[in-house]
């Protein structure tokens, strides 16, 4: 039995990935361990020689950054999962909103704030901003934002009723009974939301590739889908 | 104003069990180190809550554990000169001095800053902080601070211990004036028998937490059996007298006591004023015949009433001097050579006289003065 495979993964993947990992251990008898943190922190640690074998990012940018610095094995890189962003409203039974170009988001807010993850740094925020821009409503709500540290915090703001509306991942919205999804942003309104994965250049663990293959295997598809992700075929 | 104390208080293995009354305005607490003087004073000040007992000053009850009464320290208006200074380190000397003023009612203030500062010789220190003062300077500031608080009761725990004779000689008369003029009751702790005998109307002698004796200064200081506690060297008797006249030319005042006439350094008081004088046993010589051509001014006829020898060569002799008691200290050799025995008539030759104006009526009618020849 070799050393466990060390995976650096975005924190939002925890529930699904824990299950995937358990399955792998059961099947192969090998160990894996996951360090969950923000994609940025993980990328920087990899840059500083972290003993990781596999990186699953919630953000294309950080994976690109590592690739530029030749810290991943480019040939192993692939997009693992997809996600979508949704507009949520406070309360379980909020009326649906048609998300179309120029939809009246500002007036829906009624003086309240739109909760989002940080729009220049956190992926979910960046996607949300892009979507709003392409729909032409960004300028009307730009000064009505409550930008949170991460999607979960944004969700919390809506869930607690601090903000009437928010933009979060579909995966997060599904699990909270105190919010209702009132609309999904059309896939074309923002760059595709992707979770890329790659084996790291410094990895010496022969099991890393096997683990990555396991993650990608069709058997694991339902595990991710249960959490609301779209599993991207190769 | 009278002070009445009836207390029982334990701390660690020490128990204070004190009961006394004092009608005098200055009550001296006297006793060996560790006998409970500071503890008693702290209880009167309100810093220690006694296990049980009662303290009454005048008509004000300070503590009465039975009735669950305990007046907090800040409402007792005592001026407490602590044994260890306790100056406020963050305030200047002047601010320390005036601290009590902030809280004292305007009426009832006595003593101005200037007069107290002058008396204590601390004018040059006013802007300094306590950390930069010498030991005696600190003690003087502490005395000033208590005086300027315009207290209704003054508690002084060895206030003069750190001071030189010269300074003491300046401050003692002030305390006497305070006692007589303002009639503030004073509870005064001191190891110096001289100070106690001079200042106190009432002496309370503490011994291992218990009152060994309490009463008029004259009586306590004259009791031969208390010498082990009051200290032999300063033992003496106190006589009542009246001012008979002044000998301006010599700077002397003539006093009449029951036993005869005494000459002492000038006392600035009217003829007829009652004065209390203390005569130390060690200052009294005995002569079988009336000596002549001798420098001692005071020669009183007397009769031996009691002889009491301690260990060593010394014998204390109690004399009857016109009805008053007088003490003399002589050697065993002299007792034998002179044939001293109770009933023998002889002369007491008194070299030095310490005196102290006897307060006669409440309200007082003029400054007292004191001296020691």
């Amino acid at each position, binding site marked *: 039995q070799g050393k466990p495979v060390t995976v650096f993964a975005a924190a939002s993947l925890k529930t699904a990935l824990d299950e995937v990992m358990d399955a792998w251990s059961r099947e192969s008898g090998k160990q894996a361990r996951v360090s969950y943190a*923000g994609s*940025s922190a993980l*990328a920087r640690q990899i840059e500083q020689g972290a003993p990781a074998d596999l990186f699953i990012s919630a953000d294309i*940018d*950080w994976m*690109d*950054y590592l690739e530029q610095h030749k810290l991943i094995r480019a040939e192993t890189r692939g997009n693992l999962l997809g996600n979508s962003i949704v507009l949520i409203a406070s309360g379980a039974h909020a009326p649906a909103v048609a998300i179309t170009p120029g939809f009246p988001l500002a007036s829906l807010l009624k003086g309240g*704030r739109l*909760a989002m993850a*940080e729009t*220049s*740094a*956190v992926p979910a925020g960046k996607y949300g901003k892009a979507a709003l821009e392409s729909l032409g409503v960004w300028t009307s709500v730009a000064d009505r*934002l*409550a*930008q*949170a*540290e991460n999607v979960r*915090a*944004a969700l*919390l*703001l809506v869930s*607690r*009723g*601090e903000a009437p509306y928010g933009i979060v991942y579909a995966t997060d919205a599904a699990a909270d009974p105190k919010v209702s999804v009132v609309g999904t942003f059309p896939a074309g309104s923002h760059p595709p939301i992707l979770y890329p994965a790659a084996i790291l250049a410094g990895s010496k663990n022969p099991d890393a590739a096997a683990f990555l293959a396991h993650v990608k295997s069709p058997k694991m598809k339902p595990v991710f889908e249960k959490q609301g992700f779209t599993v991207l075929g190769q | 104003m009278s002070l009445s104390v009836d207390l029982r208080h334990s701390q660690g293995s020490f128990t204070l069990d004190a009961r006394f009354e004092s009608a005098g305005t200055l009550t001296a607490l006297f006793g060996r180190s560790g006998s409970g003087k500071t503890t008693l004073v702290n209880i009167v*000040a*309100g*810093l220690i809550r006694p296990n049980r007992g009662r303290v009454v000053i005048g008509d004000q009850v300070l503590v009465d554990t039975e009735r669950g009464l305990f007046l*907090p*320290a*800040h*409402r*007792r*208006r*005592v*001026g*407490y000169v*602590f044994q*260890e200074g*306790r100056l*406020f*380190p*963050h*305030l200047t000397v002047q601010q320390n001095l005036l*601290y*009590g003023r*902030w*809280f*004292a009612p305007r009426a009832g203030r006595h003593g101005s800053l200037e007069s107290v500062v002058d008396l204590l010789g601390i004018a040059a220190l006013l802007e300094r*902080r*306590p*950390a*930069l003062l010498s030991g005696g300077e600190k003690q003087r500031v502490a005395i000033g*601070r*208590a005086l300027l*608080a315009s207290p209704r009761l003054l*508690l002084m725990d060895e206030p003069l211990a750190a001071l030189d004779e010269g300074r003491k000689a300046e401050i003692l008369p002030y305390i006497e004036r305070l006692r007589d003029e303002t009639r503030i009751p004073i509870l005064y702790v001191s190891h110096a028998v001289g100070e106690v005998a001079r200042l106190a109307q009432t002496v309370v002698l503490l011994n291992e937490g218990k009152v060994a004796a309490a009463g008029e200064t004259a009586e306590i200081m004259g009791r031969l059996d208390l010498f082990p506690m009051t200290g032999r060297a300063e033992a003496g008797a106190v006589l009542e007298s009246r001012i008979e006249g002044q000998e301006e030319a010599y700077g002397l005042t003539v006093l009449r006591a029951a036993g005869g006439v005494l000459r002492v350094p000038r006392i600035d008081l009217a003829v007829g004023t009652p004065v209390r004088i203390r005569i130390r046993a060690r200052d009294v010589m005995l002569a079988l015949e009336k000596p002549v051509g001798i420098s001692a001014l005071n020669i009183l006829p007397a009769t031996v009433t009691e002889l009491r020898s301690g260990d060593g060569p010394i014998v204390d002799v109690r004399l009857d001097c016109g009805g008053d008691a007088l003490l003399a200290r002589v050697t065993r050799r002299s007792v034998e050579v002179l044939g001293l025995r109770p009933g023998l008539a002889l002369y007491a030759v008194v070299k030095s006289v310490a005196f102290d104006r006897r307060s006669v009526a409440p309200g007082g009618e003029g400054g007292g003065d004191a001296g020691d020849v």
Partner: protein
Amino acid sequence: MDWLTLSPDEVTAIKLSLKVALWAMLASLPLGIAVAYLLARCDFWGKSLLNVLVHLPLILPPVVTGYILLLVFGRRGAVGEFLDQYFGIVFAFRWTGAALAGAVMGFPLMVRAMRLSIEAVDRRLEQAAGTLGANPAMVFLTVTLPLILPGVIAGMILSFAKAMGEFGATITFVSNIPGETQTLPTAIYVFTQVPGGDSGALRLTLVSVAISIAALLASEFLARRAASRIGLS
């Protein structure tokens, strides 16, 4: 040295940070002194509880503290709703909320410093003040407080510095609204989350450090003066 130029947004964040940190420090000061006094001097039922409560922000991850703040002081929070309705005080998404978060996070530090100082005060001096007629409140104001000044100053600078650096609880509680709740640390955080944001993070970090150095030096100066007044040096 182009990267050293501050954007208008950043200038706003700096000003806001200063305001938030100052208010956090000043507003928590009276309560801090009171709690420190209670913990140092009094024995009462629930003292341990109070002690734990005070230390909680130190023990908990800041995100959790922010979450709890949101639950309690948010618009829908028990206390938040009450304050809004009866006093018109709103913390949610306001700079006041950022100040509250800073104050709460700095509170254990402030209280501890002041408590240590109070415990070191020679109580015989307070007794002396009492015999001179000062009631307990006056004793505190005229004796205890001046004597614990070094500790108070230490508590203040700790609280200020913490509020200047606080980020996790703040962003969780009041999020990150430029001009309202975007403080220096949140701005720095944002820079650290994007590739290539390092120079921006460094720029703002330098500003933050410069401000805190100034505050630190001022506090040292004041503490030194206070100490020399007490005659400690």
